């Protein structure tokens, strides 16, 4: 057993800031549209929203660039964003009856839903990360497409298949895109927010909350007559 070595090198590099990475990608991949997605939580993990056309070129740059060398794609996941309605209230000054008044106007902005794929990239060579990359589909319809990163990071292979299975994003360029967790005949995308699972709660002894609502559909109403009215004469001891 003497042949085993122990790691001697504990050093790691400090990664450049996300803004620097963004400007370097834009220089390296002409035409790439990149947006930094802010993160309000204390984790401070901001991410890069990249456009689907240049996604593969951007990913290859992140993988190959000697300063970044993000050779380890740790986590790939999908997110379902439903259609949202954002209410905005704005104070508008208008002339009412010749006088200037402030009126609160409520405008409703409808943000169409989309599916999102998020990649967490690390570097095992430089021991830094994460650089978070996200891609968005145009809408939530069937057969939404995104480019696959499996040719660049093999670790995305099963995870992208899982996203295809549970969210229904088709990854173009994936070598073997089949259902992975559910059976092949299954048709729904169960991790989508609007998925309704089959109702098999016929028997639920102690339901509560959402389960109670489901279980109620299986209840038969209590009969109005409970049998007591059949007793005509009081029992005599």
């Amino acid at each position, binding site marked *: *057993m*003497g*042949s*085993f*070595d*122990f*790691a001697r*090198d*504990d050093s*790691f590099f400090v990664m450049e800031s996300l803004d620097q990475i963004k400007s370097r990608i834009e220089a390296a991949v002409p035409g790439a549209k990149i947006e930094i997605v802010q*993160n*309000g*939580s*204390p*984790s401070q*993990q901001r991410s890069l929203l990249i456009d689907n056309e240049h996604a593969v070129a951007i990913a290859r740059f992140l993988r190959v660039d000697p300063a970044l060398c993000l*050779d*380890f*794609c*740790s*986590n790939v*996941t999908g*997110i379902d964003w439903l259609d949202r309605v954002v209410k905005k209230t704005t104070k508008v000054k208008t002339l009412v009856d010749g006088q200037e008044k402030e009126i609160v106007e409520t405008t409703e902005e409808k943000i169409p839903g989309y599916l999102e794929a*998020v990649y*967490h990239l690390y570097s*095992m060579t430089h*021991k830094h990360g*994460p650089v*978070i990359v996200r891609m968005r589909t145009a809408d939530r319809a069937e057969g939404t497409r995104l480019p696959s990163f499996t040719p660049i*990071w*093999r*670790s*995305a*292979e*099963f*995870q992208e298949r899982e996203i295809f299975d*549970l969210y229904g994003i088709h990854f173009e360029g994936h070598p073997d895109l089949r*259902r*992975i*967790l*559910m*059976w092949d005949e299954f048709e729904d995308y*169960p*991790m989508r927010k609007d998925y309704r699972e089959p109702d098999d709660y016929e028997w639920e002894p102690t339901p509560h909350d*959402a389960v109670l609502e489901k279980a109620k559909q299986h209840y038969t109403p209590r009969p109005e007559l409970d049998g007591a009215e059949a007793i005509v004469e009081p029992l005599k001891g």
Partner: protein
Amino acid sequence: MSATIETLEAMERPPVSMASRLQGELLEVSMGPQHPSTHGVFRMNVALEGEIVRKLKPVFGYLHRNHEKIGENTSYLGSMPYTDRLDYFCSMTNNWAYALSVEKLAGIEVPERAEYLRVILAELTRLQNHASLLGFLLSDMGAWGTPLMYAFREREKILDLFESLAGSRMMCDYMRFGGCRVDPSDEWLAQAKQIAERFPKFLDEFEDLILGNEIVIGRTQNVGKLSAELAVNAGITGPMLRACGVNYDIRKVDGYGFYPRFKFRIPLGEHGDTYDRLMMRALEMRESVQILKQAFAQVQPGPVMNPKAKIRAFRPPVGEAYGHIEAPKGELGFYLISDGSPNPYRYRVRPPSFINLTILEDMCLGHTVADVMVILGSVDIVMGEVDR
């Protein structure tokens, strides 16, 4: 013992030219989901040429119990017991990974004693996980019973510790956002210290009994080789990655918890074969005992819960966080998106065993079907985590 290794390495594996080989015809075999050595309900569709594996496709989902969907319909705290059931050998490290991610998401501090307790419990978990893995691996190789019994004897001691602390043998549900659930007594710490100190004795015995065994060496050396480049590209983590010689351990790289306070070494393999993967576990257990000894010496009385941390009606700020730790099987990460409500909008588990299976086919090609079981055993999977 090293002499044995050299002679066996010099010996070439016999060229496999089976008489039963058909004229290039492949025989398709479905191994699993009910199979004695697939560690649960894992299934592989294997195409065989004689005894040689020419194609292998893993089939998942037989234990897909919708962990992520349930996590999105439950409060943050409500998911904690579910994390126990991900990798059911290592509930403590699962708890820690989840607690760490939520702490990142909400910016919660953890008191000093709780951090020490987390390290202690994680390393105890690593000990029992690696010990039982070696037992299972040898049982897959044909050493039916004995090594597993020895491993489970040690595992039971650690499970007793967990039970006296958390109330359950396997499903501990011990950690909370901002600390730990209960404070262990001094007797518990003394008992745990004793078990940790006696553990190397078991390791000596186990290594003498098994790791120098000629059959074990013959069955594992040069079997299921994995190159460092492929391992990194395929996202392999944990002991499997380090067996290929890649120095990447999140305990060192991220320095989460109090790991920077401890002196420990990261064992690295050379060949990336099954033997190296087996030895990584054995060597890591010794390092874990070192960490435990230091932790028991350093831990001081104090609070185990951050009093500012909210347990009930907990609503983290809008945002997202990805936290990961070095679980016994590899990088276990949780990716959480909060929309300000009591339930996470997205709850994602990055399971090490699932992603470590990516290159199972590459490792098995060209080996006999009997080696597939050994290679799969050395990957160290738990189906609860693979399928979630």
